[in-house]
């Protein structure tokens, strides 16, 4: 029997993701990869997959797949109603279906399968980069996603004791960015004191936020410069954009601060309407 998952429903957005394409940013090719790296890595660990195996990243639930062979699956990240395999690997027998409801909290659910999603890699990765238009196509109803095999033993873990992404207000540690000095001290106080709301035009590129604008003290244009995920870039309107996995490789607006890298995974689980607060991290 062919090891594969047949896609019956996708929810708002399902993509294939792995650890991305590091090492090619100098060619204008961003890293991309799973938005919540820790949750994707957990899925692979629980299944005994290599760390770079590809998983499905499901945005706001709604995915349904049918196994074409006996498979072992797990979901991590945002917990969805109907997912019996959350943080705990479970068999999905040939012909059985996995149907994800809407998560109670959090935004992105990772569906891992032992052996990994085995679509052809593009430039060394199976990640879909929605900004660059690189990688496998967005997952669509009717797709038959091939599943590979893993050379590693099963870890024999029944359940990972991981807290679900929080539904309420989230506090995120920030460090000053390369252009913090383009803003006055009061802007930093505003950034680390006020609350911001995640807006609905957020995506894998970044979170657009609602909240107090940050005033610049240095006018003029910034020549484009490189950035990584977690960057808080400030366009002329003054409200920061928090960049996630598919951020542009370079940008021409000043970066006032950076969310500490480990905490960017939590940003990837924030839903539109959710409140967040930035707090200065111990430098």
């Amino acid at each position: 029997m062919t090891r594969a998952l047949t896609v019956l429903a996708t929810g708002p957005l399902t993509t294939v993701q792995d650890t991305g394409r590091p090492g090619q940013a100098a060619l204008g090719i961003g890293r991309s990869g799973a938005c919540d790296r820790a949750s994707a890595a957990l899925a692979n660990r629980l299944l005994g997959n290599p760390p770079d195996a590809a998983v499905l990243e499901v945005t706001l639930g709604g995915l349904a797949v049918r196994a074409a062979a006996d498979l072992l699956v797990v979901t991590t990240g945002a917990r969805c109603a109907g997912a019996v395999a959350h943080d705990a690997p479970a068999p999905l027998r040939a012909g059985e279906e996995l149907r994800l409801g809407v998560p109670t909290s959090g935004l992105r659910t990772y569906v891992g399968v032992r052996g990994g999603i085995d679509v052809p890699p593009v430039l060394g990765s199976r990640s879909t980069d929605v900004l660059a238009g690189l990688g496998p196509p967005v997952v669509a109803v009717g797709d038959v996603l091939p599943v590979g095999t893993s050379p590693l033993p099963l870890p024999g873990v029944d359940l990972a004791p991981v807290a679900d992404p929080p539904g309420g207000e989230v506090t995120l540690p920030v460090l000053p960015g390369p252009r913090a000095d383009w803003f006055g001290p009061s802007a930093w106080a505003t950034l680390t004191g006020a609350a911001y709301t995640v807006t609905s035009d957020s995506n894998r590129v970044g979170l657009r936020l609602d909240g107090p604008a940050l005033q610049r003290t240095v006018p003029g244009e910034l020549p484009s410069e490189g950035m990584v995920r977690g960057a808080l870039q400030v366009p002329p309107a003054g409200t920061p954009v928090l960049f996630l996995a598919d951020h542009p490789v370079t940008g021409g607006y000043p970066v006032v601060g950076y969310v500490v890298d480990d905490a960017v995974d939590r940003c990837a689980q924030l839903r539109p309407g959710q409140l967040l607060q930035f707090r200065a991290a111990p430098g």
Partner: protein
Amino acid sequence: MRLLPSGSTALLVELDDLDDVLALYAALAGRPPVGVVDVVPAARTVLLVTDPARTTLAAVAAAVRTTAPRPDARAGGDVVELPVHYDGADLAELAGLLGTDPAELVHRHTGAEWTVAFCGFAPGFGYLTQDGGGWDVPRRPTPRTRVPPGSVALAGGFSGVYPRASPGGWQLIGRTDVAVFDLARDPAALLRPGVRVRFVPRGQSRDCGPSGGVVAAP
């Protein structure tokens, strides 16, 4: 050289000008410090992205400070020849804006070699600078919503080739049939930092191969 904080995993090195960027990038890209996964040149900066499991920002900063720039690197890159139809939508207007005529603008564009300084905006989009410089081209007041793939364009002190259809605000002076970004080719990106480019008016290309675009050793 100024080292600027860029979060918990990256370091931004700010330099005086593009020549310094090219020289430092050439040295770092050739021998990246341990634990550096990406070296990203831009107009005035080089970003070093680290794997925090393998190094610290302090160690990378120390390595950057002791790296000897390679100002000689500009002369050593591969050479790419790009045949261009100089029939861009903005050619005549831009020539007027620069106080010249289309023929003279094309002559200047093709007359001296360009070097890919850095990439960005889209996969395989290179920012090219001409040896000798002298270009100062304003962007279009209103960006186009769709620039056709292969468009050869100018803005600021740079020339570039749009790898695929995209929005864009640069002045379009022509188009090339060469795919500057092609996933079926290795490497996919033709215009990598350090690569030297010669634009040739279509019809005068000396030895354009079947795939277009000639990559020759200098």
